[in-house]
């Protein structure tokens, strides 16, 4: 077995930044950037769901055509850290279930590989379904499979009997499965108690390379980065902002992202009389999101549930304090540095709770915070070198040279 820097590693993922969805999978790209320099060769297969309404006949035609085109249209592109990236569309009829989705991913991967197995002696899949299962069915003999699970909709996957059975197959045959937070770990260990010993924690890596030029001096410019959907509590966030704005008209809120609440949020901002204080940017690229973090004063997240809360770490890496809910991920991500980093608020459907959290934070700003300390502590946990070393240790039982 090759060791570390002599090894070929293959990453299979359904999420990776693209022109269509520039945000999706930036954490996979970060993982690739962190670990690629530590191995001989790292290849990424981005198996991208291309969803469309199709009749069964169209579905059959499209799938056959996709397989036929996969060889001619396959392009290997340079990725971060010297990795190679192959973008691979997986045509998916709208409404396809999780299990069938995984089967389609496996078939498309097989088609693009021309029937040969994945080259890596270590294959690392992001999420158990579809990519873990697709990788499992394209492994070469002797190859070891690792999986990182960070799907926020994992409970829905495990609620489906067929999908749960396929997930069980992945867990039974993988070497290890990494959960990005305790919530994911507990759910998987509870669902598959026989394989609980294979499940362990592994955080997503975050770059701490670029900090902030000038320190935060006030908490006036709020920033939200994420999907504009109910599960993220962004509608309640707007209500809380309006309450705080009524006390301080200098406050501003920037909502970065897209989703079904885009229109309703604009309408509600107008109804609340805060339209001039609220900006919705739509989706932006990860570098643009980082630039916005350096230009704002406070990251605000009123999410109902998070597996990890990567954006919280990214904000602190950019020198931005945070005000976030105890929704599963952030309280663990910020364990031990909650007060240095900003503030945590209970998940509550009353926006007054979040507004009260802001007032408490403002009352102890800036002396009550220690952003440099929080940043340093997070870099030691989630920085590229730390997470790359943890992957290397798991894959090869040694630290990278």
């Amino acid at each position, binding site marked *: 077995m090759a060791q570390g820097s002599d090894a070929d590693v293959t990453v299979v993922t359904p999420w990776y930044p693209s022109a*269509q969805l520039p945000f999706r999978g930036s954490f996979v790209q970060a993982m690739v950037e962190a670990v690629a320099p530590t191995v001989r060769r790292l290849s990424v297969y981005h198996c991208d769901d*291309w969803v469309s309404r199709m009749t069964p006949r169209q579905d059959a035609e*499209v799938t056959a055509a996709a397989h036929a085109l996969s060889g001619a*249209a396959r392009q290997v592109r340079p990725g971060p850290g010297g990795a190679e990236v192959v973008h691979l569309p997986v045509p998916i009829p709208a409404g396809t279930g999780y299990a069938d989705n995984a089967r389609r991913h496996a078939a498309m991967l097989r088609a693009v590989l021309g029937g040969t197995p994945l080259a890596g002696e270590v294959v690392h899949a992001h999420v158990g379904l579809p990519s873990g299962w697709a990788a499992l069915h394209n492994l070469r003999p002797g190859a070891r499979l690792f999986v990182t699970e960070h799907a926020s909709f994992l409970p829905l996957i495990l609620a489906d009997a067929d999908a749960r059975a396929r997930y069980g197959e992945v867990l039974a045959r993988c070497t290890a499965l990494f959960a990005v937070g305790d919530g994911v770990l507990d759910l998987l260990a509870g669902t598959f108690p026989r394989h609980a010993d294979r499940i362990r924690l592994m955080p997503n890596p975050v770059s701490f390379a670029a900090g902030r030029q000038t320190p935060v001096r006030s908490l006036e410019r709020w920033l939200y980065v994420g999907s504009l959907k109910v599960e993220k509590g962004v509608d309640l966030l707007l209500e809380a902002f309006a309450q705080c704005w009524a006390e301080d008209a200098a406050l501003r809120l920037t909502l970065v992202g897209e989703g079904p609440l885009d229109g309703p949020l604009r309408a509600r901002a107008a109804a609340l009389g805060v339209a001039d204080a609220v900006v919705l940017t739509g989706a932006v690229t990860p570098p643009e999101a980082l630039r916005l973090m350096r230009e704002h004063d406070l990251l605000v997240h009123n999410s109902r549930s998070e597996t990890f809360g990567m954006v919280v770490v990214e904000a602190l890496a950019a020198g931005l304090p945070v005000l976030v809910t105890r929704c599963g991920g952030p309280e663990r991500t910020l364990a031990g540095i909650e007060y240095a980093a900003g503030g945590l608020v209970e998940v509550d459907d009353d926006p007054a709770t979040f507004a009260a959290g802001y007032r408490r934070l403002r009352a102890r700003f800036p002396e009550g915070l220690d952003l440099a300390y929080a940043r340093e502590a997070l870099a030691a946990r989630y920085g590229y070198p730390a997470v790359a070393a943890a992957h290397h240790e798991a894959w090869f039982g040694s630290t990278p040279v």
Partner: protein
Amino acid sequence: MRVLFLALGATRRRAVVEESARVVAAGGDAVVLLGSAQPWAREDLDPRVRLVDLGELTAHTRPVRWAQALLVRLPRRAARLAGRGRLREPMGRAWRAYERGVAQPVHRRLVAPASVRWWRGPVLRREVAARGPFDLIVVADPLSMPDAARLLRHGVAGSRRSPRLAFVLGLGCE
């Protein structure tokens, strides 16, 4: 570089808008083949990108025009001729019932799928040959894949070498 985007399904419009803009910004030519112009009405495509509405071109092919004549124009003319005087109102009702119950469903279920299935391919090949040669064809959504596969199989008329195919233009370092 001359790039053709096959975007007949219109399900990945943002990618096509971004990537075609990048082609023209770099001094290249970008042609986008659409299945229908309607889903693109609100998209902010670079004005230098050329759009070709394949649905519109296919609707003007001889078989589709014949089908439309048989299904709509001839029955309408007959209804007008018959619907004079006291028969004007009942014939009007009958025509509307025919249009709703026969002409539109037959067009939707038979003529439209048949035009995509049988006549869009030749129109596509003709347009690609007329507007080419292209260095790269980007297959931009699932419903464009069967047409791309046929292009790959049959080649492009008048083109000595087949253009390269890709599913995405790429972002440089990814």
